[in-house]
């Protein structure tokens, strides 16, 4: 049977996308001991009129989208992280001391139109 094709426009809507940050790509692998990289994710996509419930929008974003529908000079709401989580990193600091630290807001858990 033919594969079920999702409507094309849904693919463009605001959602979370995979983004693996490899510390060697940014040249930080000499001081970060672990992890070698992590899934940070990013938010991207359209915030179309009318905003659907799953786009996790605010009242302001709904009103801004409504205004955009009648006046294109006002931009649409932005697709941004709405929930973030922490990761732990083990690294050598500027004095060669080994540090284990919890860093907040490093991973996107959810996206929304804001």
């Amino acid at each position, binding site marked *: 049977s033919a594969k079920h094709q999702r409507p094309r426009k849904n693919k463009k809507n605001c959602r979370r996308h995979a983004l693996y940050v490899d510390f060697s*790509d*940014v*040249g*930080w692998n*000499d*001081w970060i*001991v*672990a*992890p070698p990289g992590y899934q940070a994710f990013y938010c991207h996509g359209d915030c179309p009129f009318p905003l659907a419930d799953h786009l996790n929008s605010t009242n302001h974003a709904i009103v801004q989208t409504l205004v955009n529908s009648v006046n294109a000079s006002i931009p649409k709401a932005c697709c941004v992280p709405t929930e973030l989580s*922490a990761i*732990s990193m*083990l*690294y*050598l*600091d*500027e*004095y*060669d*001391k*080994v*540090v*284990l*630290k*919890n*860093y*907040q*807001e490093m991973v996107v858990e959810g996206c929304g139109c804001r």
Partner: protein
Amino acid sequence: GTNHASLIPETGRKKVGELQAHAGSGRRSGQSHELLRGFEASLLQMFGLRRRPQPSKAAVIPAYMLDLYRLQSGEEEESLQDISLRYPERSTSRANTVRSFHHEEHLENLPGPSDTPRVRFLFNLSSVPENEVITSAELRLYREQLEARSPAWERGSHRINIYEVMKPPPARGQVITRLLDTRLVHHNVSRWESFDVSPAVLRWTQDRQPNHGLAVEVTPLPPAPAGPGNHVRISRSLPQGDGDWAQLRPLLVTFSHDGRGHALTRRARR
């Protein structure tokens, strides 16, 4: 291809350079330089660093810190180097940072006569940022299993006493110390022992009292004048390589909070 003095990769810097070349004017060139400096400052602030770390080749990663990271990240306990290690829930519940320190080896001997020799460990904690509040600290010592000489001797034990050195060690005479922690251990096990040295470390950091170091005393029970001195690894053994000592030498571990974000709550593996 990275600039080793900066947290911003060379490729990123070049990209900014290209953009300013397109823009043309010298005034914009200065602005992009400022922009890069501001971005670099934000990155350093985010990591709580004063400048980009440039680790020396001699830097040693203690196995305990790697194990803590693995436990923290929710890895299986079988992957730990020290399988007897338990996650220090109590210490980490009020901390979001764990720092490890090796002692200054050239300052380790305590002068003056003493019935039981003590070894002094001086830990330089000046790298702890001022905004970070240390909540607890532990001194970790490794002890190696000793071969049995006789059944009676095998049943014997060692007492390990940990002291804070209260005043600079005098040229002669007894040093003034206060007992921080003590433990009775058996000869026949190889393992790390953890001692609570929080009162001393809090005095040095929060109360800003002078840091004259910690003293460790190892007493065999029943008393045995010669032989079991190398049971607790408090000094370098010459026949063994530097690599062995680097991993088995005493380690001071501090648990602290920088006031940002949550404590090191252990993650469950998905």
